[in-house]
């Protein structure tokens, strides 16, 4: 029982780290720029299929592939924001039309992937998939056996590094601080002689670029089919809101919480109840503390 509990929590932490990678882009876009990119998980799925394609044809590691494709996703993000800005933000219609627009984009991405690859599950080959690291081999845990599957451990490590990188980028560099500035006071930024549209465009590019990495991590963790992205919508929004809208460290800890909650529920109640965990937490958060656990009141 205790062994099961410890293993569930450990698996939850690893899963949560991966969730942080998925939520990272949305944390920037939704938390800082106020753009409700509900299609973010769909971009993650594009990342998964891209990693699958390269892995299948050239045998390259999915995570390495995703880093190679970062510029492509960055440009894709910039293009998406340009279009969004011209059609909605400039005319002040982002609330209703903007929401429906991203919803439509998500749907189109899903259908396009179905048209190309069909609805079958796809997976990738990598040397670390299928093996586990047993902690009790290294540290005596009083007889408990605790395993860390590399399939989860590698994504967790990559996610942690990427999250840390984005955190440092946003807080230390000039452009990163400009992104924070545009989320705080757009007009003031304009008065300082900076172009908020350019800054937002840059931020959107970074956000979509993180989706490429998250997609590769996703297909390492489990096989992917085109509509898997839907399951992540609620999760990532729950994480971003729980994490206090745009706080990168908050996002990371909220992701760990959701991950642990899900593995505990699927271990002790049943896997079919796990999807509701994030949504339940989300609804309670919205009702009780809309600024999130780590947000400023």
């Amino acid at each position, binding site marked *: 029982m205790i062994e099961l509990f410890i293993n569930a929590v450990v698996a939850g932490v690893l899963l949560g780290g991966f969730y942080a990678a998925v939520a990272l882009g949305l944390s920037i876009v939704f938390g800082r720029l106020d753009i409700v990119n509900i299609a973010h998980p769909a971009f993650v799925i594009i990342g998964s299929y891209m990693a699958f394609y390269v892995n299948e044809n050239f045998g390259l590691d999915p995570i390495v592939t995703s880093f190679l494709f970062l510029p492509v996703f960055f440009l894709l993000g910039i293009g998406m924001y340009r279009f969004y800005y011209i059609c909605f933000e400039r005319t002040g219609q982002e*609330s*209703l039309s903007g929401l429906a627009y991203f*919803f*439509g984009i998500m749907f189109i991405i899903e*259908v396009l992937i*179905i048209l190309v690859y069909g609805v079958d599950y796809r997976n990738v080959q990598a040397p670390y998939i299928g093996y586990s690291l047993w902690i009790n081999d290294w540290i005596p845990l009083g007889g408990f056996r605790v395993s860390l599957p590399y399939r989860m451990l590698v994504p967790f490590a990559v996610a942690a590094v990427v999250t840390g990188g984005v955190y440092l980028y946003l807080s230390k560099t000039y452009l990163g601080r400009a992104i924070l500035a545009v989320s705080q006071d757009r007009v003031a930024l304009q008065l300082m002689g900076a172009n908020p549209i350019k800054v937002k465009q840059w931020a959107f590019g970074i956000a979509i670029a993180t989706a490429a990495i998250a997609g590769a991590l996703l297909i390492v963790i489990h096989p992917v089919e085109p509509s898997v992205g839907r399951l992540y919508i609620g999760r990532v929004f*729950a994480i971003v809101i729980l994490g206090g809208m745009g706080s990168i460290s908050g996002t990371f800890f909220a992701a760990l919480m959701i991950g642990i909650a899900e593995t505990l529920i699927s271990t002790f109640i049943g896997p079919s109840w796990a999807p509701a965990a994030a*949504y*339940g937490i989300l609804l309670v958060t*919205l009702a009780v503390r809309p600024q999130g656990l780590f947000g400023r009141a």
Partner: protein
Amino acid sequence: MKLNKFWFIIAAVFLIGIAFTMVADNEFYFYATYAVMQLMIMGIAWNILGGFTGYVNFGSGGFFAAGAYTTVFLHRAFDAPPLLIAVLVAPMVCGLIGLGVGYFTLRLKGVYFAIATLAVAIILETIVVNWEFVGGAGGYYLLIPENVVFFDSYIEWLFVLILAITLIAIIVSRYLNSSKIGQGLAAIRDDELAAESMGVPTLKLKLISTTVMGGLMGAAGAPFPYFITFVEPASAFNLLVAVMAIAVPMIGGTASWIGPVIGGLLLGTIQETVTVNISSELNLLIVGVVLVGFISLAPQGITGLYQDFMRKRRKGND
């Protein structure tokens, strides 16, 4: 005069529908028109909350499926009662769900409301997946009754039923649009804070709006199990329902009751034609592309384009 014309058209459409069941033999026509009308009801229902009140709802699939599963529940619990009972009960159940959801989520603004509705749909789906009584994840088969009173086949009865629901939905939507309630809803859409301070009972109006939306979605979903004879959570809670429900008013125009009617007719017809002649995947792609195209290029929909056109022509004549 205009009012009489409206009621005359409603009555005429209903009578033509009944006459249609007498004349037509090919069951395909009934299946196709059923699908178009189901789509239209979903659009009308979404528009009451989304178009009139300005609250985007991504959880249409949840309400639709709740209607379908009310029918399944009654079928299982009371040994296949007549469908008409389910069609009367489902809107009440879904209206109540709408009221509850509205009560908890309408304090949230814009985006948060939209995400909360999505959350409600997933939670409902998880409950149904784990509820063995209504079939769980495996789904539930319904046998269509062999004897139908008055009609030649069961699909004809379903056709007349959904026609009646569609017309009722149009009447309700038109009433909400043109009455004082509709003015209040429009005030909420344009500026909720201003409306509130002018004495518009915003919470009450929003609750009416979500309840009616839920009820109509449920009414659209109630005959669905009989239409496809097999329900499973994945198809009933399909995201497609939510996309369709948004696409219909967006294409037709969200500001008035006629928008989703036009949008439903247009999108439904395109869909049925493409599904039959080309493929159902391509059909989905077309829906998505048409939706995004209309949102970005013609945000007022077809009715907006028509108004622009009339305005320009009037200007040209002057």
